[in-house]
């Protein structure tokens, strides 16, 4: 298949940037979206041009690096999928595909399609952990955990920190990400002792990073490659409310 690609090119953080149009010829529909870009980049390098910079690492949907806004959708048109897991067969021959970086004040563009997501790291550092003594791991069965809690915590822990929720939210809100991180710990007994300070600190850091406010539009849940549920946001709101009332 042959495609027209409109790709955002930006030399560095201070460059204004612009779209550049490329023709991708003889693209196999069995390629992943990233492989399609790899082939294009080889051509660019052969011509002596700068290849298109984009983030990627695992290429199996678990690292969360492959951020790209494809035809107006985070990670492209297929729900529950990262860009590396998206196949070219999801596109039509002759189609024009617009590729942009995540757009958010808290995710500044570094180069082309690569954005700086260290704001997420700082949110995690503000409270996304539990404090435990080192030594032998406890016996797994010594802490009974209700099946539903274990399942919900596990589902929340599936978040890969990709930032698609922020990218797709009309308000650039990071609530789905932060709530997944708050939930995975708040649901388990090991996370309870620090639950109140955790939620307050993580939300404070989130606001300081310049993410927008959640207005419950639901785009994040629809675009999340790990299908993290809005219920986590409600849980975080609840945790936040109780923690604030308790004056933790």
């Amino acid at each position, binding site marked *: 298949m042959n495609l027209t690609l409109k790709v955002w090119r930006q030399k560095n953080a201070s460059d204004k940037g612009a779209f550049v149009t490329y023709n991708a010829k003889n693209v196999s529909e069995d390629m992943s979206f990233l492989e399609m870009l790899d082939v294009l980049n080889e051509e660019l390098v052969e011509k002596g041009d700068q290849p298109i910079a984009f983030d990627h690492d695992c290429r199996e949907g678990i690292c969360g690096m492959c951020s790209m806004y494809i035809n*107006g959708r985070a990670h492209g048109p297929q729900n529950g999928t990262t860009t590396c897991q998206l196949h070219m067969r999801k596109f039509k021959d002759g189609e024009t595909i*617009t590729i942009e970086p995540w757009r958010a004040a808290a995710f500044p563009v570094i180069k082309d399609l690569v954005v700086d997501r260290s704001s997420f790291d700082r949110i995690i550092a503000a409270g996304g952990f539990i404090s435990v003594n080192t030594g032998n791991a406890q016996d797994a069965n010594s802490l009974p955990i209700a099946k539903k809690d274990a399942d919900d915590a596990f589902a929340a822990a599936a978040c890969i920190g990709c930032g698609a929720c922020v990218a797709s939210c*009309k308000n650039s809100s990071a609530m789905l990400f932060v709530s997944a991180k708050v939930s995975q710990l708040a649901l388990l007994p090991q996370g309870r002792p620090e639950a109140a300070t955790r939620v307050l600190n993580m939300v404070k850091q989130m606001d300081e990073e310049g993410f*927008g406010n959640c*207005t419950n539009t639901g785009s994040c849940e629809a675009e999340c490659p790990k299908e993290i549920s809005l219920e986590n946001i409600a849980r975080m*709101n609840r945790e936040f409310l109780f923690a604030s009332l308790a004056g933790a």
Partner: protein
Amino acid sequence: MALTGLFLITFLVEHLYTNLLIFAGDGGLAFNEASHSMVHSIFIRVVEIVLFAAIILHVFQALSLTRENAKARPVKYAVSGVNQTSDWFSRNMGLTGSLILFFIVVHLNNYFVPYRITGTVGDGQEYSIAQCVVLALRHPGYAGLYLVSVIVLGFHLNHGFQSAFQSIGFNNKTYMPLLKLAGTGLAILFTVGFGAFPVLIFLFKFCQDILPLN
């Protein structure tokens, strides 16, 4: 936002009920009496202050929310598929809210100001409050604005009701779909209920018992 919004909804329930008294067919007696007793109830006077405070707080929060959110994405997308992942109602709360605010101002100016502040309507004046209501709604411009506003209110609540529960942390797989349905139901109820006033009074010439058409 959520608490003020939910409070405003409880007010609307009460407001709809007293308004419907205008169709009692008793020349506006029940409606006038209800208005009269509300003015003279200490409880209602207190609630009224809370209500004004709630509207101001709701609008103030809406403004700062909208301003902060606009700042959170300085560079917009060239192609945005946000309409594929969220519904129109949820994305346009600021717009529908602003239209409601505009209507509230006009609405207060029509009834609250003459009845409660200048005293040009009501006890001992040319028109009773019920007649004032009917008179205003026979005006095509006002009837039209009223109808459009209650439809927009329906849009606001179609998202707002369930959104408020999500905001206060109440969301689970069983109840959320029901709350969404309830929100849409409430939106329809308010739109049809309040919409009945301009439609019946302007289009179908209701309430001649209150103010005969000459």
